[in-house]
């Protein structure tokens, strides 16, 4: 019988498998909100327990072994040692959310309510620092608080934006050894690893929410402008960041080896709903050389496939993504302009693995009826799953407001697409 791991391997090689592999929770962009995890556990009859928030920025919940089994999940993930707010996922304690759910959060999840009732969170769990994230009281997750000190053009140095890109520490390496040993003890499912520091100009990371005193260009609009007005500055950052990333990939690979099949390399969003954040020429000039170096190293020295996340209407950039050496595209935002799944599959299906696009999350999953979700998912699986090259996942994380009946309908449809009754 084919294992989940083997199934993933086959589709990554663009070969048909006995069924479409499923990811729900392997990465910070393919996960499930903690509220939905609890609703799913209840609906599937799993024991009631406070769910761990494994990714505090987006409040993603742990999809544990029991839930993986119940949902038919084929892939798991190992994230970087520290969360986006700079603390480790350890020392779990209970926390009551705005929506009344009791969840488990790590020790470093230090928060306070501001005068308007919003929840503020601190980098490294240090309440003496400026808070780096805010969850509105009617919200379900955090957004970064931009802490941009006034820019002094004459004193701006690439080092300011490079502070976070450092060689993996002894603690990091010990973490990876533990995680990989744990995985190897029972390697049933496929594995995605995220070693961190490999995404260039990722706008979610530019504000440095894990840092107490981020320096350099940290404002989101200023960063976008910087890509035009200070190209030498950006090249210098990317050059040095790439050198560190290559060294870290090498060190991490010595520990991870072929336990992982996929490395999460880049979460930089290049697409909006109907356009891109830059022209293909800009991508080729500014980003491609550095990604190409990372991907070339990966392909020469490992069996890993390289995972590229970008929301939005990125079809005009896909050829450039391939040229930069990426093997996998996520989340395949099928309702963005130009992202018709048939066109994508026809044009790129033999060269690019689609990891996502299994269900539209802007219109269908949150707002359609369960039977409409089921029909939609079956169609997506039929189109994208043909001849391998497809890992089922929603278009980005499943959010807190989705009716659980629709997520169950989604799962039913995947099982039907896979020939289960």
């Amino acid at each position, binding site marked *: 019988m084919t294992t989940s791991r083997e199934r993933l391997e086959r589709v990554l090689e663009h070969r048909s498998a006995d069924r479409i592999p499923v990811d729900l929770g392997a990465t910070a962009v393919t996960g499930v909100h903690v509220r939905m995890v609890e609703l799913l556990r209840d609906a599937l009859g799993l024991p009631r327990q406070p769910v761990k928030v494994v990714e505090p920025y987006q409040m993603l919940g742990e999809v544990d072994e029991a839930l993986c089994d119940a949902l038919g999940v084929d892939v798991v993930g190992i994230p970087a040692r520290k969360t986006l707010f700079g603390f480790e996922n350890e020392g779990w304690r209970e926390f009551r959310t705005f929506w009344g759910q009791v969840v488990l959060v790590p020790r470093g999840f230090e928060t306070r309510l501001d005068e308007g009732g919003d929840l503020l969170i601190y980098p490294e769990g240090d309440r003496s620092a400026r808070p780096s994230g805010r969850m*509105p009281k009617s919200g379900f997750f955090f957004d970064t608080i931009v802490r941009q000190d006034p820019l002094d053009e004459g004193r701006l140095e690439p080092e300011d934006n490079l502070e976070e890109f450092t060689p993996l520490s002894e603690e990091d390496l010990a973490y990876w050894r533990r995680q990989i040993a744990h995985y190897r003890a029972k390697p049933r499912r496929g594995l995605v690893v995220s070693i961190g520091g490999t995404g260039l100009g990722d706008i979610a990371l530019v504000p440095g929410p894990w840092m107490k005193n981020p320096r350099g260009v940290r404002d989101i609009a200023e960063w976008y*402008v910087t890509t035009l*007005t200070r190209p030498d500055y950006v090249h210098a950052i990317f050059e040095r960041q790439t050198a560190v990333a290559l060294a870290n990939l090498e060190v991490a690979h010595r520990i991870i080896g072929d336990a992982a099949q996929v490395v999460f390399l880049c979460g930089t969003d290049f697409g909006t709903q109907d356009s891109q954040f830059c022209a293909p020429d800009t991508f080729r000039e500014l980003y491609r050389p550095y990604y190409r170096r990372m991907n070339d190293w990966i392909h020469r020295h490992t069996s890993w496939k390289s995972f590229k996340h970008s929301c939005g209407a990125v079809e*005009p950039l896909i050829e450039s993504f391939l040229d930069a050496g990426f093997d996998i595209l996520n989340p395949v935002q099928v309702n963005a302009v130009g992202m018709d799944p048939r066109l994508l599959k026809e044009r790129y299906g033999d060269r690019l693995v689609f990891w996502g696009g299994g269900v539209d999350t802007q219109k269908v999953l949150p707002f359609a009826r369960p039977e409409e979700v089921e029909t939609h998912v079956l169609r997506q699986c039929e189109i994208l799953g043909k001849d391998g090259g497809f890992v089922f996942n929603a278009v980005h994380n499943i959010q807190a407001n989705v009716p659980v009946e629709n997520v169950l309908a989604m799962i039913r449809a995947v099982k039907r697409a896979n020939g289960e009754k």
Partner: protein
Amino acid sequence: MNDLLERLSQCVENGKINQAAPYPPKLKGQPGADELCREALASGIPPDRILEEGLVSGMSRIGERFSQGKAFVPEMLLAARAMTAAMAHLKPFFTSGAVKRKGVFVVGTVAGDLHDIGKNIVAMMVEGAGWEVIDLGVDVKAERFLSEIEKHPRCVVGLSALLTTTMVNMEKIVSEIHARFPGHVVFVGGAPVNDDFRKKIGASFYAPDPQGAVEHLKTLAA
């Protein structure tokens, strides 16, 4: 068109803020929107003409290129900065009444949502089209929109949302606005929003890009 105003328009379109600004490289060392607007005023060109033929024209061109996928968010942000640099010189004429705004546009990202890049670009485009913009920021509740409508009864309201989880708040805000001010004009926009949703929640107008909003505002100002 006056040559000076054409150059000003080009500076706005290309994001040339002032003489010291290094971008775009092809205009390095040349006067930018800041200097050219001052020069236009000093040469006696009426401020309403500077606004229309320099600023509105430049923002309209970059807006069209953005709609066509030929310009991108960074270029839009720089154009807006150039427009703002020039607009600073025109502000006294708005205050004195020498130049009339086309209307008031009250804009904000709805409650629960902290995303503002899209909303900011729309605000800049609308300001660049000659409207007074009152930007209420992010995470804005219905009461704040209602209070602005009371102050500016003929204003157009713009609501932005990036998240499916906050689209529902957009619906609540539209409903509260219309309960108190029936028929008030409310624009909606943002990544997950579309015209079907606009119809469902009873808002007045949706455009997938900022230029669409600007074009529709023109019909309201006319």
